Each structure stands twice: as C-alpha cells, then as structure tokens.
C-alpha cells in the first residue's frame, strides 16, 4: 500500500468527508488521495460507513404535541409539569406535618430507633388475638408494614399521616433525607408534648400535696383542742368524740 509522509490529519479528513473543507483544502486533499492509497482507502471506508448508517432510522410513533389553553384541559392534581406545580405539593406537605403534630399530641406514640429501624407504637390498641402471628420477613421495600392489614397506614410519606390507633409502622434503613427531616420534626413535636404533660402532672401533684398538708395541720389543731378540753370525768366521752371526728374526716377523704 502506498502511503506518503504528508497524510491528511483526522480533522481535515472529516472536513473533506462532510464537504466542509474550503476549496483550497479540497484541492490539496484531492491531490494527496491520488498518490496515497492509505488515505484513499480510509476515506473510501468512511464514505461507505456513512451510507450504511442511513439504514438506522427511528420509529415513527404518533406524537402530535400541541399547546392548548388552560381552559381546554382539566387540571390534574399531582401532575408535575412546571414551576407552578411545586406550590400545592409543598402546601400538602405543610398540611401533613400539621396533621401529624396534632395527631401525635393527642395519641402520644412511643418511638424507638435502633438497628432494626424505626418503630412507632400507639397506645390504646392491642393486636387481634384471633389473628395468627405473622412471619417477619426481610422486605425488599424500604417501607415495611407491621400489624393487621386494615389498620395499618404507612407514614413514610406525608400522604400517609392518618395513622390508625394501634398502628405499628416500621421503616427500613433506606429512607430519604426529606423523610428523615420529617421524622425529626415529628420527634421534636412529641418531645415538646411530653414536656408539657410532665409539667402539668408536676403542678397537679404539688397541688395535691399542698391540700394534704393543710388537712393534716387542721387535724392536729383539732386534736390538740380536744385534748385540752378533756378532764378526768369526761375522758371516755372525749375519746368517743375524737374517734368520731377521725372517722368523719376519713369518710370525707
């Protein structure tokens, strides 16, 4: 095969191949191809390849995309198709968080986090004793529901916040960052609720203790007064009076 030392480089060859070379370059390449069998074959093969490539055609499905006015198209909720669609989505998310906050403040669920995932338990519901226990299997889904079928509601997304009483929902280890943030918000709300409840309970205990102390002081005063009035003849009568008083106080409590 004849090959010269001044072969055309790749860029010039593709310019020539796709007819984008200027006239001077084209004349120079033509002259070279007459004496260089290597470049002539290279070009010949590439031209053949271009012909072959034209056998590759895409399918022709019905497209027919058209712009229509908003009044012609019923609005589809949840359709993500532009900058305006994120607003209702976030609105739903905010509403869902509020619902969760109210629900958790009412039912005060217990949350446990461990290697096995997150477990949310809601007091006030016991599993149906007539139902056989279910085998726990490793689920491929990031969300695994535990408990009876019709009582479970997943809480992995804002749409699933309507947790039925007694629901025991377990999450796998592969939740997303948004779900993690959402769970963090729930934990904060639960912690605040517990602190409020503890504070109220403490106040009520203090009030009861104060009432008991006041009553004890009253009792002691009454007993002292009774003992001062007692003389020898009336000792028996005084004892009966004291016992009667003590029984009456006891009945009042």
């Amino acid at each position, binding site marked *: 095969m004849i090959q010269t030392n001044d072969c055309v480089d790749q860029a010039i060859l593709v*310019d020539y191949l796709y007819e984008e070379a200027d006239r001077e370059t084209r004349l120079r390449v033509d002259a070279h191809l007459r004496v260089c069998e290597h470049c002539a074959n290279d070009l010949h093969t590439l031209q053949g390849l271009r012909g072959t490539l034209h056998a*590759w055609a895409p399918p022709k499905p019905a497209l027919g995309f058209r712009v229509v006015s908003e009044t012609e198209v019923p609005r589809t909720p949840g359709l993500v198709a532009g900058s305006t669609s994120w607003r209702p989505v976030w609105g739903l998310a905010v509403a869902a968080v509020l619902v969760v906050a109210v629900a958790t403040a009412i039912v005060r669920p217990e949350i446990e986090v461990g290697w096995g995932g997150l477990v949310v338990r809601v007091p006030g519901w016991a599993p149906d004793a007539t139902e056989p226990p279910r085998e726990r299997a490793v689920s491929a889904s990031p969300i695994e529901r535990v408990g009876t079928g019709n009582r479970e509601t997943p809480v992995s997304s804002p749409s699933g916040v309507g947790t039925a009483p007694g629901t025991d929902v377990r999450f796998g280890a592969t939740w997303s960052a948004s779900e993690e943030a959402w769970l963090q918000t729930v934990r904060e709300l639960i912690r605040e609720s517990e602190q409020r409840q503890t504070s109220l309970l403490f106040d009520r205990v203090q009030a009861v203790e104060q009432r008991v102390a006041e009553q004890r002081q009253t009792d002691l005063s009454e007993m002292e007064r009774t003992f001062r009035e007692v003389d020898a003849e009336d000792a028996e009568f005084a004892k009966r009076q004291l016992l009667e008083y003590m029984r009456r106080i006891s009945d009042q409590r």
Partner: protein
Amino acid sequence: MSTAQTAIIGMQRTDEELVALAITGDPDSFNQLIVRWERPIFALAFRVIGREEDARDVCQETFFRAFRGIKGFKGQAKFSSWLYRIALNLCRDWIRRERRSAVLTPLESETDTPPASEGASAVETAEDRTVRRDLGRVITEAMSALSEDQRTTIVLKEYHGLTFQEIADLQACPLSTVKTRLYQGLTVLRRQLENSGIHSGALLSGNPATKRGATRTT
C-alpha cells in the same frame, strides 16, 4: 385550528417569524413550530438514549420547556439549535439519572422498520426491507459501543446535518474536539460493524460480500 391547517400555515413562515408571533402569546404559532420540529427532536432523542417511550417524553418536555422559555429566547442562535440544546440537556439528564449509557434497543417488529422514504431507495422489495431491518439492528448495537459524546456528535452530524461549528456550540467544546470525536466514533463504529460482518467498503461499492447479506441502502 386543525393540525393540517396549522401545518399548512406554518409552512409559509420562517422559524424566526413564528417565534416572534409565539412570544406575543400566539399558541398557534408555537404549534406550527412543534409541527415542524417534533419529528427531528424525537429522532434525536431516540438515537441518543435509545428508548422510544423515553424519547417521546424527552420530546414533549423539550417543547414544554421551549414554550415556557420562549419569551427569553433572544434569537442569539437559530431556533432549531436552541431546541436541540434543550433536548440534548434532557437526554444528558436522562442518561445520568439512569446512571448508565444509553440503552439502544433494536427495532424488533416489522412495523417498526423505517419506511422506504427514510434511508432507502424509492423501490424497495420485501427482501430489501428485511435486509435493511437487520442492518438497522446491527447499527443499533454498534452505536451502543460509543461514548455519549461520540454518539451525540455522529447523530447531530450524520442525521441532522449540523455544521461542525453548530455542534461545537451545542456541546460547548472546541471545533477540533468535535472533529476528533466524529472521526474516532466512526472508527469505533466501523470496527463494531466489521465484527458483526458488515464491511463498509463493500457497502459503498455495492458489493454484497457481507456475511449478513447487507446491501448499500443509499
């Protein structure tokens, strides 16, 4: 206004004129642009990502974004180049989202075989059609061996006829890089086809000396 009416009226105006009307809020003008460009954009998306349904989605999203951004289109580039840029960005996003190179699937059914008007001679026998379908399947497989940049460059040049400068602008790379990608991509394709028994030189000269019996289709 019917699609046919839209198409007929659209033929009388240039892209620039239709864009100017669309910017003023005329949806019919934009629809005329869609009629004109939906096939090329779909073909581009299909050849780059290789899935018909996803190519349809990319095509639809391309025009949706173009419609939303038409008022920001200042005419720095041709409208077609702008559309190509949007579509290629969407294709790139799709490939990254899928975290894989494009999935090029061969056309399986007889009805998927491209019609004679595209890439075939005017008179095509059933045998020619079968040969061309087989050849298309081999090319599809060969294309999947290319890098995304090489494939996109070949598609833009070979099937859409863009100049090297337009491709360089779309891919935001130097002119020399486009030519190198094209040459290297064609070299890889030639090797892949030869491994499948398709010899380009034989195709060019009309010599049916190919293992799969392919013939030149142009």
